[in-house]
């Protein structure tokens, strides 16, 4: 028994230590790369820091950047927990964005009705975009990876078309949404020197709690995880496997749709024709995996990710190309994924110590 308890407490400890070590290693490798390419890593990192935390404005922008990443991270993590790989968060973001703005533009209502309605529209649109691959997976067994990839492109083209021919008269950007549908806040903006920070971060954090609650506390979460682990046993136990697969994709899509809502009702207040993907969905994959597919992990990973990405904007002032940050993030992910080797090394060190 004693043995077991020790193992689990070790597990918790490693759960904290491994990411920290990984981040440090990532930064060290980043420094080495900077030195190798003739830059001063101290200047580089100072710039990175300033880019993310220089003043209230940058902090506000950093939070703004983190917000949708939390949601796409949750979306992908949620699907993963059910054994599904949702590469389609990207498309779900796009349709969520579009739907939220659509409602934001076309309805006239007081804020208490308008804003929730617009938010909901985005979540539903994202959910719908997840429903299709979920349905095909459940009923016909079509691999969700292909369908979600295809749905991304469809989302982009359809959204562009709707912006152009439904929401505007052949223009590339819609009007601003009514203020009754906006997540923006004078107060937050005045606090952060007109950054685009908006109340969406509360939605994102709330979504993380929701996901935690669904997955860990509800019978639905129990079923979803069971289906992810073992379809046959789930069927034996009387669960509706197909329903769970579809539901999982729908919920996942709804989270991603909410990420689009953040952009549509918060950051931009409109929707534009896009010529390429937002990358929110793809970055969400990294966030989810870095966060070990659990809600708290996703929030932390999104923070790390957002801070580094936002900070990167300042790095050229030290002469360092912004892409250094991508390299650093990739290396952090590698080390987290290869935590086995870090554990192994730590255990070695511990043993030697004794």
């Amino acid at each position, binding site marked *: 028994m004693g043995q077991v308890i020790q193992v689990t407490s070790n597990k918790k400890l490693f759960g904290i230590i491994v990411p920290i070590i990984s981040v440090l290693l990532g930064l060290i490798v980043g420094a080495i790369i900077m030195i190798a390419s003739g830059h001063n890593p101290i200047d580089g990192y100072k710039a990175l820091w300033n880019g993310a935390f220089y003043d209230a404005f*940058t902090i506000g922008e950093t939070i703004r950047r983190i917000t949708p990443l939390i949601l796409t991270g949750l979306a992908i993590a949620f699907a993963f927990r059910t054994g599904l790989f949702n590469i389609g968060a990207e498309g779900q973001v796009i349709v969520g964005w579009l739907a939220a703005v659509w409602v934001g533009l076309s309805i006239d209502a007081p804020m208490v009705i308008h804003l929730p309605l617009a938010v909901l529209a985005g979540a539903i649109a994202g959910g719908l975009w997840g429903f299709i691959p979920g349905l095909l997976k459940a009923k016909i067994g079509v691999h969700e990876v292909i369908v979600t990839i295809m749905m991304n492109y469809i989302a982009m083209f359809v959204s562009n078309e709707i912006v152009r021919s439904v929401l505007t008269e052949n*223009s590339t*950007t819609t009007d601003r949404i009514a203020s009754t549908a906006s997540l923006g806040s004078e107060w937050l903006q005045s606090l952060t020197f007109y950054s685009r920070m908006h109340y969406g971060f509360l939605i994102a954090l709330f979504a993380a709690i929701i996901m935690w609650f669904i997955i860990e506390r509800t019978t639905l979460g129990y079923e979803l995880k069971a289906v992810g682990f073992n379809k046959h046993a789930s069927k034996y136990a009387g669960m509706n496997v197909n329903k769970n697969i579809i539901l999982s994709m729908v919920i996942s899509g709804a989270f991603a749709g909410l990420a689009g809502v953040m952009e549509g009702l918060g950051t931009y207040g409109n929707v534009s024709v896009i010529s390429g993907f937002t990358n929110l969905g793809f970055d969400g994959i990294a966030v989810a995996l870095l966060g070990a597919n659990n809600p708290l992990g996703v929030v932390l990973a999104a923070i790390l990710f957002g801070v580094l990405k936002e900070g990167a904007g300042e790095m050229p002032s030290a002469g360092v190309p*912004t892409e250094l940050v991508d390299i650093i993030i990739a290396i952090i992910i590698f080390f987290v994924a290869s935590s086995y080797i870090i554990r192994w090394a730590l255990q070695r060190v511990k043993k030697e110590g004794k």
Partner: protein
Amino acid sequence: ACGGDNDNSSDNSNNSNNESNGDTDSKEGTENAGDFKVGMVTDLGGVDDKSFNQSAWEGLVSFGEQNGLTEGEGYSYEQSNAKEDYVPNLTRLIRNHYDLIYGIGFELKEDLTTIAEQNKDVHFGMVDEVVDLPNVASITFKEHQGSFLVGVAAALKTKTNKLGFVGGLDSPLINKFEAGFVAGAKSVNPDIEVEVQYAESFGDPAKGKLIAANMYDNDVDVIYHASGGTGNGVFNQAKDIKQNDPDREIWVIGVDRDQHEEGQVGDQNVTLTSMIKRVDVAVESVSTMSLNGEFPGGEQLEFGIEEDGIGFATTNSDAMTEDIINTVNEWKDKILNGEVTVPATRDELKAFEESL
């Protein structure tokens, strides 16, 4: 007035942002602008996009050098890697007390508007879009005029009477290119057909190549592209055909700047001409106005042929023969003296075609 020659040199001069070459350059400066600071925020293309970001930056560099400014301090740019970078980039310049800030490209309109509303004491230049604020000078171009001229050139060059137009995103801006081009071609010969396709992307060379392959296969012999990186595929396809069949007469018309270089294949060149948008001229002139205290705030400056803001390239002298240049110039004069009003939208184009 074709900008083709200064492109090559500027490619090299602005290409390193880590080692500032401002020190040596500033000595050449004739006057000193004191602590005047001017910056620009690129859209997703970046200052080396061989397109209007690059052109704008060349304008700033030229302005800076002439006024003894240092790169990175007196004049600089902020590169955007994603849509969400626009605001932080604009703000970074404001925080560093820039006096004049350009937003390059229509995508920045919304964000620049917001920031300009919040910073009424800072001057802004909005390139390619119109922002109606007292502290913003809107700089737009009459791309349809330039497109009209290259349309004329294409019509003179084509042997099959079939032309192609490849657009990036189907948007009012790119429609302007389309309308001008079609109008120009049909003005020369109303029987000319123009095949129009949009790739729905400025960065999909594979699609560009597919579209070009299809067009050239359908006897189109001149393609005008207004599609950024997608155009790479168009050039690629034209060059490939040329390489295999050097005698086949097929052409590409470049956009924004002289794309002669892109058309080189062996000792031949498939770039017939390019529609040149002198963002550099515009940026430089607005900067100068601002330095001299004549900032055209709240105004919409439309750079066209007249303002020397739009032109066409004649670098490929083998293809752009004297005759063609002369005819194009005749049409240019007609535009200048108001004899021809070039359509800028599809609706205007329809009317224009009916009037032919």
